[in-house]
């Protein structure tokens, strides 16, 4: 009997120990389950925050580099522009404040906070790297990761040199002065910012009345000026504006002018000028300073520069004078230096070269 009583007691203990076993195991597993839930929720929120930060960084980098296009070397303004994006994180509810903008001269450069350095000029800095930091509060993983998780996003944007155009270039072309009476040796075409040059020339033998081109007829005056319109057609001005009226062209291509007599006059430069909201400012400085009726930039044109030997040597930016100055003969325009296509504003009226804005990473 003693034995039986012992056996019964042990059995009773065994039964008691099994009672609530699942509850006990569940409690232990709950920690693991909560951890996994926390992983899904907190990591998910972090993933969203990262994506939101990336969106902010992309726009901020474009803003910064666009600001540099309008005012080369204005780094404080570029930093400020980078912070102006209204993009928020935390599902669009929290402002992003930790924004660091650094600058470089090329995509592979060491980006620095306070340029210039290493012998570069402020205007050489055409790339911006924006780094955004966000601290995402952790709810369920705080015991592991701490109260917040650091999220960072980076974007680089820059002004890329254009070596080709898909169309949209102004269908008249000046010739380079680099090897013939250069007026500014630092300019790739020997042009001087602010000076006037001839885009369309009178037939051979006639002289031009444009700026320092005055009296100069060049060796190929009969065709110089008509560029990139295809073999025999003359595009409408709007076709050219849309990029469909002129053919793609790259540096080094043979310069294919339109020579057919009689077609030249159908290219009506006045129509182009009338697309601008300021058709009267006499020069680029006045045009830029006009705040009463500001121009929309249509009088600023990109042209193909030729070497006077039927080869494309590059692209330049000119300002068209008022339509009232044209008498159907020479087309004169003012050289205004560099242009960054797509920059939301007027070019600075300095430097040289044609660029486009690009988000690089």
């Amino acid at each position, binding site marked *: 009997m003693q034995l039986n009583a012992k056996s*019964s007691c042990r*059995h*009773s203990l065994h*039964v008691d120990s*099994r*009672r*609530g*076993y*699942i*509850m006990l195991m*569940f409690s232990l597993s709950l920690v693991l*389950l909560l951890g*996994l*839930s926390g992983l*899904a*929720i907190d990591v*998910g*929120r972090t*993933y*969203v925050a*990262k*994506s*939101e930060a*990336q*969106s902010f960084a*992309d*726009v901020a980098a*474009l*803003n910064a580099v*666009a600001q540099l296009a309008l005012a080369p070397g204005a780094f404080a303004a570029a930093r400020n522009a980078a912070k102006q*994006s*209204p*993009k928020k994180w935390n*599902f*669009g509810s929290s402002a992003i404040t930790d924004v660091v903008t650094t600058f470089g001269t090329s995509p592979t450069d060491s980006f620095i906070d306070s340029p210039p350095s290493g012998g570069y000029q402020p205007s050489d800095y055409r790339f911006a790297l924006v780094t955004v930091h966000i601290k995402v509060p952790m709810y369920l993983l705080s015991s592991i990761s701490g109260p917040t998780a650091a999220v960072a996003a980076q974007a680089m944007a820059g002004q890329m040199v254009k070596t080709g155009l898909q169309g*949209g270039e102004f269908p008249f072309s000046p010739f380079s002065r680099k090897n013939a009476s250069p007026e500014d040796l630092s300019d790739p075409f020997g042009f001087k910012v602010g000076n006037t040059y001839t885009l369309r020339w009178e037939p051979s033998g006639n002289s031009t009345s444009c700026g320092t081109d005055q009296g100069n007829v060049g060796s190929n005056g009969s065709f110089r000026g008509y560029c990139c319109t295809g073999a025999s057609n003359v595009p409408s001005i*709007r076709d050219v*504006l*849309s*990029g469909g009226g002129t053919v793609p062209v790259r540096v080094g291509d043979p310069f294919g002018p339109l020579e057919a007599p009689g077609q030249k006059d159908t290219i009506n430069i006045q129509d182009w000028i009338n*697309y601008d*909201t300021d058709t009267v400012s006499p020069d680029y400085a006045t045009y830029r300073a006009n705040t009463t009726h500001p121009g*929309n930039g*249509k009088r600023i044109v990109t042209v193909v520069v030729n070497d006077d030997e039927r080869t494309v040597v590059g692209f330049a930016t000119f300002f068209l004078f008022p339509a009232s100055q044209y008498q159907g003969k020479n087309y004169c325009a003012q050289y205004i230096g560099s242009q960054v*296509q*797509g*920059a*939301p504003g007027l070019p600075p009226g300095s430097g040289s070269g044609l660029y486009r*804005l690009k*988000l690089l990473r």
Partner: protein
Amino acid sequence: MQPINQKRNKNNQAGNAVIEFAMLIPILVAMFMGTWSYGCAYYIYAQLESAVRSGTRYAALTTYDATSSVAYQMAIQNIVVYGNPGGGAQPVVAGLQPSNVNVYVQFSGSIPTSVSVSISGYKIPGMFVSPATLINKPALQSPFMGFYLPS
């Protein structure tokens, strides 16, 4: 031979586990579904954020033709939904329609100055609760940096 009480006890014991498990099942299911729902919602939202970012980048850098602003808007909606300005068959986020994509262009005079892209009316599916409907989220605004073609 086992005593009758002991036998009854053992039978009762077998039922305990089932009852305890049955009691805990709803909690487990709720936790699983909650985690799944939130995980999916976050994943979908991040995908939408990425799609809106692509659409905004395209909108900011492409040509705005004043004579075909509808085409401009459609191209952006297609970028967001299909990742291609020409459209497609498979949306990058299940259930997303071009009509869910808002494109808002701001002008100064007649010149576009900035463009905003956002999602509205898209329902993020929920397993427990009714689907969450997004209103103007996610959204992204960028200065317009493309080419403007007047009418």
